[in-house]
């Protein structure tokens, strides 16, 4: 059972300023479908390289992107630092500072908060996360499964 952590409300409420320590920012993660993600998923192409290019992506507001130092890739962390994922970074005009967007796919879901507030539905929209620039490679969906999810089996 996950109990309220003292800092939790702070994530929800105070992230719009995009504050954080050097090179690392607390932001709100918005996930959603994109037409290309849809096209690839419906076409059964989830294990191919095109899917990685389209979905292992984080869109960042111009302001935050500049302050992060125009990174090629970023690593997104859950607030408790339990899970993280490296994805391609892209600046986007559609976003306000303090918000990031990732297509709904295995990369984004790795860092979505699993608490459902007793609704059954996790925070796919507005999940608090931490973002930092990274040099690490972006993994494919299959590599994510092998590295993160195969502990119990295989």
């Amino acid at each position, binding site marked *: 059972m996950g109990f309220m952590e003292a800092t939790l409300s702070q994530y929800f409420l105070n992230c719009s300023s995009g504050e954080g320590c050097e090179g690392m920012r607390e932001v709100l993660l918005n996930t959603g479908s994109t037409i290309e993600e849809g096209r690839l998923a419906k*076409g059964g192409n989830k294990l191919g390289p095109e899917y990685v290019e389209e979905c292992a992506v984080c869109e960042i507001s111009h302001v935050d992107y500049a302050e992060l130092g125009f990174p090629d890739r970023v690593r997104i962390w859950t607030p408790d630092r339990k899970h993280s994922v490296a994805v391609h970074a892209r600046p986007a005009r*559609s976003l*306000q500072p303090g*918000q990031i967007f990732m297509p709904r796919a295995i990369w984004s879901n790795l860092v979505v908060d*699993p608490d459902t507030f007793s609704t059954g539905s996790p925070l*796919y*929209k507005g999940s608090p996360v931490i973002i930092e620039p990274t040099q690490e490679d972006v993994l494919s969906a299959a590599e994510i499964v092998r590295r993160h999810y195969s502990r119990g089996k295989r």
Partner: protein
Amino acid sequence: MMFRNLVCPVCGASCDDIQVEMTAEGIVAKNACKMGNAKFQELASPHRIRQPLICQGGEMLPSGWEEALDRAADILASSSRPLIFIGSETSCEAMEVGLHLGEYLGGVVDSNSTVCHGPTAMGIQEAGRVGATAGQSKNRADLTVYWGSNPLESMPRHMSRYAVYPRGYWTRRGRFDRTVITVDPRRSLTAENSDLHIQLNPNTDFELLSALLALLHGQQPHPSAEEVTGVAIRQMEEMLELMKGCNYGVIYAGLGMASSYGKHRNAEMAFHLVQELNNHTKFVIGALRGHCNVAGFNQVASYLYGYPFGLDFSRGYPRYNPGEFTAVDLLRERDVDAALVVCADLVSHFPADCASYLGEIPMICIDIASCPTTMLSDVVLPGVIDAMECDGTFYRLDDVPIYFQPFTASPFPFTASNQHTLQQLMERVRGRKEAGS
């Protein structure tokens, strides 16, 4: 050969005007959008799962149908509390069998609906919902509000078939007869194509809706509402005037409302707002449902057992309590011991703690293409594509049932449909249970 009036098995629009031509070069699907087209191509795609797979020594190996079914039945029959998760791109007929299987085993049956518009359904349970079939907005609506939804990317034909562009009976000039408002923290493609974009702060839908309702009830909202939502009171008033002043208004709510912080309380407030607007003009609200039959599970589960999703059968009668009997919570809390996943890629679409628990328990999946979930399964049964290879029923985004017919048959000699696969599995599970008791 040309097939007409086909139903697209992808998003909640459940378009029923698809034309398919099978040519020597391949499949041409007319009227379908990008996503729909991709799915129609799936019929002949190289990554289609064409035979059952069984995990042996850490590797997925091809197996015979009987062997795979036996293994799947063993897993289910020996489990104490299985989770049966039914995706929403399969038929109501398959869902019914899945529910029966869950009831028989005393397990839990859930569907995509939980993680999709589950909170919207919960909002309906708190407030009720004033809605209409999509043709009402097509023929009458002069105001369309996309709230937390981005149909241009998630439901590409929504605007042209139902809500914005069609020339309806009282909306003969199509787009020119309508005002479009988008409420979204992101300046999405849909927002760019709207007359008014209310760019609220993320996770503030509840406050914005409450403020609109307070204004509608003649009270100025608490002054903090402006800062919290990032929307000026003046802009709220402008929006409310548009809503009160239209002849027929419709809100199409997306996951931006249902999935963000506030969840079902957001939906509940939106339903209240629409109810109260009906004292001023005609107003309705509907959800933009992500999959062609995500509404179907809500309907089938409600009429068969009384609840729209997240049904627990451990006591022989259905029980319902999101947060307790819903898939994400059960997996996060490690409260099931086997999983049957039908046409849904849970490993990709659930948070990490849930996905990794699926890697620890025995899992069976039915799917048409390889994906992270098939990679972690113990048994993979090939899926049949509804509306292309078999007939059945979908419930569209507005809960209108659509009967679909195939233009080709199941490519497998061993099963005619996902319904058929589940029936065979059910028989085998029953055989084991009855032999054991």
